[in-house]
């Protein structure tokens, strides 16, 4: 009896082992090393880094580039997370109901998520081109002169957000699936009570989806703070005037261009702390609702 039990749990561990080994070797160990490196003068080139105490931390305080980078990242999260959520939730709810051609629309919404982000970024180089890009031409239709998208700090940031509004397939699918799990009877009962489409959205759909929405917001915050690396690199390379020098870009620059391996390691820790702080604020904010009852 106990023997069989022991064997069972042993085989459980055996199944877990490949995954556990990979997690330890590829994530846990590098993460720990990263914390260690943050307090050295490691350049990524030298063999034996020296411990330098809090030197790197002091350097953070008066790093003007870091301040720019932080501002760029926060601007990006503040704009991109709500917009991406809005798009994913809006499209998910609109396309959840069975309607003719629905599957084509759903495929269309998911498609940009399958496109490699470098390819999407290259596409957006064209979309945002001030001379022949379709976006400015579209604005032209409304008599607007258009923007020099990527050479102006604010529009460059907006351009990156615009591009990242397209790969929202995962959130979209989650909303779609969650909405389809909601009981259709609730909506019939509501209709009988005179609750129209917007009332149903406000009184039924959103409250019932709230746990999913919170999850998506948290996940998108984590994601959004990191995935702007590729568009920034392809579209702007951190320019203009550091407007798109997002934290991942700055970390990369420090680590691999300026050989500031140790300093970059420290900024990754900072990025993690910022992510955690934003998520904490989000969770505190939604505690008022009963969503996580």
């Amino acid at each position, binding site marked *: 009896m106990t023997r069989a039990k022991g064997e069972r749990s042993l085989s459980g561990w055996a199944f877990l082992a490949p995954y556990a080994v990979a997690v330890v070797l590829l994530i846990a160990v590098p993460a720990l090393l990263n914390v260690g490196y943050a307090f050295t003068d490691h350049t990524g080139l030298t063999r034996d880094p020296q411990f330098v105490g809090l030197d790197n931390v002091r350097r953070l305080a008066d790093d003007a580039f870091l301040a720019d980078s932080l501002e760029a990242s926060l601007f990006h999260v503040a704009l991109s997370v709500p917009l991406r959520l809005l798009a994913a939730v809006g499209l998910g709810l609109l396309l959840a109901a069975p309607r003719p051609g629905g599957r084509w629309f759903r495929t269309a919404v998911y498609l940009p998520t399958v496109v490699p982000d470098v390819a999407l970024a290259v596409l957006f180089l064209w979309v945002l081109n001030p001379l022949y890009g379709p976006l400015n031409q579209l604005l032209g239709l409304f008599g607007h002169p258009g923007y020099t998208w990527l050479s102006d700090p604010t529009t460059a940031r907006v351009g990156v957000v615009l591009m990242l509004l397209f790969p929202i397939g995962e959130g979209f699918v989650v909303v779609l699936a969650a909405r389809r799990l909601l*009981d259709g*009877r*609730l909506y*019939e*009962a*509501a*209709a*009988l*009570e*005179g*609750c129209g489409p917007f*009332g149903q959205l406000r*009184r*039924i759909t959103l*409250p*019932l989806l709230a746990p999913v929405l919170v999850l998506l917001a948290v996940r998108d915050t984590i994601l959004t703070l990191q995935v702007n690396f590729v568009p920034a690199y392809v579209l702007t390379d951190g320019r203009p005037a550091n407007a798109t020098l997002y934290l991942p870009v700055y970390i990369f620059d420090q680590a691999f261009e300026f050989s500031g391996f140790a300093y970059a390691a420290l900024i990754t820790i900072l990025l993690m702390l910022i992510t955690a702080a934003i998520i904490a604020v989000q969770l505190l904010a939604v505690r008022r609702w*009963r969503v996580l*009852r």
Partner: protein
Amino acid sequence: MTDGGGLRLTGLVKAYGPVRAVEGVDLDVPAGELVTVVGPSGSGKSTMLRLIAGLERPDAGMVAVGGQDLRDVPPHRRSVAMVFQDYALYPHLTVRENIMFGLRVRKVPKGEARRQAGAAAERLGIADLLDRYPDQASGGQRQRVALARALVRSPAVYLLDEPLVSLDAQLRLSTRADLLALHRQIGSTTLHVTHDQAEAMTMGDRVVVMDAGRIRQAGPPQEVYDAPADTFVAGFLGSPPMNLVPGGGVLGGAAGGTVGVRPEDLALDPAGPIEATVDAVETLGSEAVLLTRCPDGLRLAVRTPPRLSLRPGDTVRLRFDPDRLHRFDAAGRRV
């Protein structure tokens, strides 16, 4: 509370693609009457209720409440409340908020809505549940919440779609009594769909038997039981159902037609004209049902007193009351 709204259905038709769910239903329910609707699964009972509630548009025909044609009246403007089989309570709202939902949608002030919800809950004996969530209430309690939600609308017509089906037998019995008492109190027109023979027979002023989207018979329960309009109704109402003998057979010839006899109208009698072998004995406590088989293969159910100590394989003789035979023509209609 009711404003005397009788219900009238005329030539109601509804098809879902090739499936003809409701095929020409005519029904007249005077104000205050409680009608039970029975029929096999898929016979269109729910669809009929949904047409009345306005959740579906009829392909043809008319629904009228209190003499008013409801063709272009949206569901919430019909004085009709529906209780779904699975209750459809809002899981994210407390019982009180569930009951208040419609009132709040209709902009009834919060205090007034709370008062009405409290009163409805009081009436149904769920006042102590008001601050719980539906998933913290039992099946029977949820059923009452759904009823309370219908009650606060004080509609002219209640549509109850198998509201007791997920309750256990005990609770079903007591809730049935409560429902009846409630109906007597508020006296509003009620359509009560059920699968349960006992509910169909005991609850309604009238019972409506449906099959394949049509009403086969409507009338006072005892009348329908005593004089089923066709072989379908004969075979559907009653448990065990009426014995139907095509051609008459041992019950006396009926060329081309069918002769039926209720199990209680057959009796054991050593001098009886029918010989049969006992296949099985179903003991129900206060009575027993013998499932027998005649030499020609015909099966007859017989209701008997309990404790007869008959065993499968025993041979018995049966007598029937010629006055209690039901005769049906070749098309299955009562003659």
